[in-house]
């Protein structure tokens, strides 16, 4: 029992409470392969052989096409070399473990852990190298933010998210441009931190490779908090949708790049005849007779029914340019998704829950618990203000999502290889 006859309850409680400002719990359902499956290893060996052959051919005469392919395969060859090295080291250590010398065994046991970690890492590197890069990964991107159905609370949070990404880009030093920012600003209604009720916003991150960085951000972002408009202190849940679309720099046009939109093969190609343009036309004679300021423009891609409307700029010409770019991006994304869907159905084995399309809820921002949880990689962070400031914590969340995505891609490649091997085995029978 306590020596003191009575101790204040609150003091006892405060002694018991441990203040943790930065707390990260990893509760991932993630399953990175510990050992490399033979199918993948086989593939790596094959590609490395091709790489060596190409190198030999290149020494005699230079061919830019071959050089490009060799450069691509170089990554794999390097990773395989590292892997083999780690594997031989491990083999030697294991041989040492069997030796009679007790001192040697001790030394080997000390080294074993480090070498195993090295092997793990090199096998992961190899799988990453084998995973095909996302075709849009090197491009800049457009972040489209739109509140889900419901009241102003969702709109306020959409503005919070918009600011978060803007600040994140500013912290990281990425160039951004606000393409569209539509808010209904009734003066009586602003959120706690001066957010406005956002209806739609598009932010362009002009950094090359931004698509690869922000790819994991696409999806439904859920918020749980007591809104500024709530009088009875109830927690509300609302959702904000974020789309990540590939963009192209304005002076794109090299025939090598993915973003060559004059090429009918490209995902970005749109036949102008398939697009219906609607403008606000002034009644009457037009021209010098009227002086309209309506510059809104709406494009409809007839075969898919995608519409884009733009009224941000005072110039119809500029609105039209932006609308076309947005339409191209959306269409390219849709085509890509359709193709991935097709591939997935062909594979027909892995449940591709990681297919990030529009519907899935991917992240929760819990204000009362000061928590931001990503539901895919299972990362919990407890520094919500820093996340919303676009600080390091957000960077960590995004990084872990990227790792998770890469692991899922590896799984997909694995499944592909196994399916191919199975098909080959069937044929030989």
């Amino acid at each position, binding site marked *: 029992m306590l020596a003191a006859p009575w101790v204040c309850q609150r003091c006892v409680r405060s002694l018991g409470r441990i203040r943790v400002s930065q707390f990260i719990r990893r509760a991932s359902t993630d399953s990175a392969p510990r050992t490399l499956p033979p199918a993948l290893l086989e593939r790596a060996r094959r590609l490395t052989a091709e790489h060596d052959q190409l190198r030999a051919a290149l020494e005699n005469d230079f061919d830019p096409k071959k050089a490009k392919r060799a450069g691509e395969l170089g990554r794999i060859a390097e990773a395989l070399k590292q892997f083999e090295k780690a594997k031989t080291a491990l083999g030697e250590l294991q041989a040492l473990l069997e030796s009679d010398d007790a001192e040697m065994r001790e030394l080997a046991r000390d080294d074993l852990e480090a070498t195993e970690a090295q092997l793990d890492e090199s096998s992961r590197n190899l799988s990453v190298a084998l995973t095909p890069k996302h075709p849009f990964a090197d491009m800049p991107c457009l972040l489209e933010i739109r509140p889900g159905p419901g009241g102003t609370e969702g709109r306020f949070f959409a503005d919070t998210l918009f600011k978060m990404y803007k600040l994140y880009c500013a912290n990281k030093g990425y160039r951004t441009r606000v393409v569209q920012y539509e808010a209904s*600003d009734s003066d009586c209604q602003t959120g706690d931190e001066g957010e406005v009720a956002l209806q739609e916003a598009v932010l362009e991150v002009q950094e090359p490779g931004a698509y690869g960085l922000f790819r994991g951000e696409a999806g439904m972002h859920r918020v749980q908090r007591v809104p500024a408009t709530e009088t009875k202190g109830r927690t509300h849940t609302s959702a904000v949708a974020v789309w990540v679309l590939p963009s192209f720099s304005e002076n794109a046009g090299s025939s090598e790049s993915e973003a060559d939109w004059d090429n009918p093969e490209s995902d970005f190609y749109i036949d102008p005849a398939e697009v219906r343009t609607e403008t606000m036309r002034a009644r009457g*004679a037009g021209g*010098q*007779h009227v002086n309209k300021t309506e510059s809104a423009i709406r494009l409809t891609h007839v075969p898919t029914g995608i519409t884009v409307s733009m009224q941000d700029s*005072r*110039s*119809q010409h500029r609105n039209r340019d932006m609308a076309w770019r947005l339409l191209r991006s959306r269409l390219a994304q849709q085509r890509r998704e359709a193709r991935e869907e097709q591939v997935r159905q062909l594979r027909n084995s892995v449940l591709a829950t990681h297919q990030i399309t529009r519907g899935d809820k991917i992240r929760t921002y819990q204000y009362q618990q000061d928590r931001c949880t990503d539901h895919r990689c299972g990362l919990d962070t407890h520094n919500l203000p820093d996340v919303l400031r676009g600080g390091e914590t957000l960077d960590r969340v995004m990084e872990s999502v990227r790792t998770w995505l890469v692991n899922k891609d590896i799984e997909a490649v694995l499944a592909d290889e196994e399916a191919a091997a199975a098909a080959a085995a069937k044929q030989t029978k």
Partner: protein
Amino acid sequence: MPRLPPSLFWRARKDISPFAPVLLPVCRDLTSTANELRWIREHVRDTPSPVPDQLRVWDLVEKRGKGVPLQYVLGNQPFGDLDIRCRPGVLIPRPETESYTLQLASLLARDRPPPSSLSILDLCTGTGCIPLLLLHALLRTLPRPVPITVRGVDICPHAVQLARENLRRARARLSSTAGDLEGACSVAFLQHDIFDPSLLRLLANPEEAITTTTTTAAAAATLPQPLNPGLDLLTINPPYISPRAFARSTARAVRNHEPRLALVPEPLAAAAAESSDSTLEPHDVFYARALAIADALRPKRMLMEVGGLDQALRVVRFFLRRRRRRPAEGLFKTVEVWRDEPAAGDRGERMAVEGTEVTVRGEGLGRAVYFSVF
């Protein structure tokens, strides 16, 4: 104009802002009210001033609410990639003008073989928006840089002054993108009456132009050579509204705030003699004059803005009759009518005028008549 229901004003106040009901009577609907308010706020935010922002917003909103065109309230209008300054007394550039100007620029840039030099003349230039946008677009799209001479002519001294100001602004913008290339180009704006017979002499002999007009030293330095002899493009956006249509069909903002000089052709004795042809109406005088100037300067292409399909067809008919009467002077082989959006393409629309098939391009209302020697 139909009366707006009071509920709309309430909704504007509730959904948009307390400023919105002031703008609503001129904007007529909630979306464009919200947009205009946003543009006013953006303008205030982008132009720093010691006066508090909210006060300036209120000031501009009030001005706009009285019916002053937004372009005069804010003092500028985006035109293509340029930002054209606008001031009361000079016509505001229209989006239709923007469309055909960009179309013309892409036509000139697509010429094969590429031209070794270009010269452009714009009559009734106003803010100078057409020649400046042409220059800007051509410098960006031509396969290789060529020297370009550009001249703009306007009767109104305010307009010429404003056009020169716009030239300075466009130059600052160009020098950041096109660099030294812009040095090979010469741009100048002259104040002159296009009905005055001395215009042609002035264009051929710029020394005289400097002495007779109130050209500043800076502008004089930009007149190193006369207009290139082979004129490539002649554009004109003249006043084309009849006094009757001005009173009846023009928007209130246009009628009350934009210069009548730029909208309604004044009856002129000299012009009346030129357009004695029965195919033209009194308010088509500028087109007859422009064709006469084209006879002297022999441009490869010419574009005239018109106020509708009727006027376009009148001009075409006048041109065709004139060519038949005096075949030596009519050097244009093709004549086309362009609608508001000429870039929308040729949908195979043809019209028979005077027994000749005339191509009608694009979508919208008849907006321009295009002539070319090709």
